[in-house]
């Protein structure tokens, strides 16, 4: 049947085109199909990357196109690595990535484990839990900014109701100690469902017969969890951690919308610093060097992590 269809297609192909195609080898045809994608990748990914590497060694400023571009060697890199503000921004990023991943993994896995019990209405609750993830970050940022508002925000009133602290004293976005946590809370609220989905896929992939065998061996629920559920779901959890880690390392939108990096520089993560240097201070060469450093850091860490993930999978 398939052969007949192919023959029909071949017969319907106009002769001049058929003659041309007949001259192309399988490999040539494969290249023909993937070349548009490769060209596109070269144009929008690879070329800008190499261009950014080149710029990182110069004093180029995008707002002064007429100025002579000087080669600075590694001066931009030296300046960045010796800049205390950059290290503070990196620490802020690390703090944010660590806590969001920890909370999202713990809550996400717990939710997945509960949903996997398949209780009555679990499909409905799964959909409800997924809602935050479906919203646009711009909407989420603006809407949480109102929730956090100390005079009219529901969040402040809810906390006030429980703690009896006046709502106007609960200044989530203005208080230096609370502002980093305000972002962690929003990111956790929005992205825990994503971690939950991946963990749920992991839990659902565990064959039922393993649990049946454990039941026969009279293994307790706790023992089943530690010896079957967790080890078998671990590669999925690690995958979720990898995705969220990469995503949160470059976090920009939520921080920009909620605090803009403030108060002071308390929530100024690396991507905000990068944006300020590149598009507000117009230090294009300097910011290119910073972007390359960030890229190498994420790429290196992700590589180490993927190796660890592969080891876990092989066990």
């Amino acid at each position, binding site marked *: 049947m398939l052969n007949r269809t192919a023959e029909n297609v071949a017969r319907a192909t106009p002769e001049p085109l058929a003659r041309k195609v007949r001259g192309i080898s399988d490999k040539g045809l494969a290249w023909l199909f993937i070349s548009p994608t490769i060209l596109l990748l070269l144009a929008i990914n690879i070329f800008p990357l190499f261009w950014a590497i080149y710029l990182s060694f110069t004093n180029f400023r995008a707002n002064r196109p007429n100025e002579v571009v000087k080669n600075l060697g590694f001066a931009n890199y030296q300046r960045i690595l010796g800049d205390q503000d950059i290290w503070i921004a990196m620490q802020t990023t690390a703090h944010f990535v660590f806590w969001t991943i920890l909370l999202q993994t713990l809550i996400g896995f717990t939710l997945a484990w509960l949903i996997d019990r398949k209780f009555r209405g679990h499909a409905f609750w799964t959909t409800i839990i997924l809602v935050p993830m479906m919203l646009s970050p711009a909407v989420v940022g603006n809407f949480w900014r109102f929730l956090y508002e100390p005079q009219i925000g529901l969040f402040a009133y809810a906390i006030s109701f429980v703690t009896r602290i006046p709502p106007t004293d609960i200044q989530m976005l203005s208080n230096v100690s609370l502002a980093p946590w305000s972002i962690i809370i929003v990111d956790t609220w929005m992205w825990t469902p994503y971690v939950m989905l991946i963990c749920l896929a992991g839990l659902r992939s565990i064959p039922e017969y393993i649990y049946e065998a454990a039941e026969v061996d009279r293994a307790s629920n706790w023992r089943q969890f530690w010896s079957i559920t967790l080890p078998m779901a671990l590669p999925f959890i690690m995958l979720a951690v990898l995705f969220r880690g990469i995503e949160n390392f470059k976090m920009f939108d939520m921080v920009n919308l909620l605090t803009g*990096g403030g*108060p002071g520089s308390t929530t100024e993560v690396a991507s905000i610093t990068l944006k300020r240097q590149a598009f*507000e201070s117009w230090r294009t060469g300097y910011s290119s060097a910073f972007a390359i450093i960030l890229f190498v850091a994420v790429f290196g860490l992700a590589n180490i992590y993927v190796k660890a993930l592969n080891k876990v999978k092989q066990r």
Partner: protein
Amino acid sequence: MKSSLKLALGLASAITASTAVSNVAHAEDLTLCWAAWDPANALVELSKDFTKETGIGMKFEFVPWTNYADRFLNELNSHGKLCDLIIGDSQWIGGSAENGHYVKLNDFFDKEKISMDDFVPATVVGYSEWPKNTPNYWALPAMGDVVGWTYRKDWFSKPELQKEFKEKYGWDLGPPTTFDQLKQIAEFFQKREIDGKTVYGASIYTERGSEGITMGAMDVLYSFGFQYENPKKPYEMEGFVNSEKSVKGLEFYKALYDCCTPPGASNSYMGEGVDAFKSGQVAMHMNFAFTWPGLQKDENVGGDKIGYFVNPKGPDGEQFAQLGGQGISVVSYSDKQESALKYIKWFANKDVQAKWWSLGGYSCLNAVVKDPAFPASQPYAQTFLDSMAIVKDFWAEPSYAPLLQASQKRFHDYVVAGQGSAKDALDGLVKDWTQVFQDDGKM
């Protein structure tokens, strides 16, 4: 068949002709770029007269303040042809002149007999000249603006509050003339119940992202004795930016933020300030004068309920205010420079400038602002005039952006986040600014 062919041909020709005609009609349309705010709406209204007079259509590209600099500086840096005319911020003048974004207007002014002596001197220096204080003009002063204050006249005139205030501070409650008085008033109103609602002392600029906290802090620092550089030795900042007087000024701004602003006002600029005043949250409100016409018309806080005062004096009696506002320039990448210059000529006309003021724009033309009827023309007119007489502006160097970013960070870190001392913040600022000027080869 023939008739349908004729019909088709006829239709096609008609469509082609109408497109061509419309293209001809729009060929000279000018695009004016500015921020999206109340004065821009007034300019749209005003520009209808220009179209009537010249037949040149006007299109407008207005961008919200938060993206205004990013959007239009990108446009200029990429030599874009979107804007034929641009009303650019005062701090852009150095960069735009040196990078060739704006057309130099000296010859045009000479030819059209437009004299810069006819404009308020501070606006000429602030909006048109580069290098500063030299007769090199890159813009026509278009929209005068300055930071000043509004206050709740109705609250200030409540007899019970006046009595309590006099007992507490020993002077009559009224618009403050010194910053000490301003703080006392702000403290007095902070968390006070008025008409069953908790109100606060003052709304001040604290915004981190663009230029907010710098505009607010500088507005206070100038009157405390802050100077950008040694007047005798350009770019020498040590002992001027971080002088004892400057430290006192910054400490005052932080104290005002800590004691007397509404809860959560840690990222507040023009819009947030207007909201705080309009919603009856604050007794006093720091903002650019362009917000005053809108507030004056407001049903809840405008009319007789609002009053205006000039930025108060510092401890040594010095009195300055932060300059805002912009000049209008012709973009050098525009293909319609001739028409754009026609617009500038039209805009410089006295009658147009008078109408500009009546519509809600702030004219910089002496003939308008020095008219004997001007002070009484609006309740805020005299305050605007007095404020324009004491203005100072931020750096207008080509590197104004990194200079501004440095002050935004240093001021916000100290004033809002409470990190370090005022001296640390200003010492850090000298270090940052020195680095910028060294990178530019100016030091």
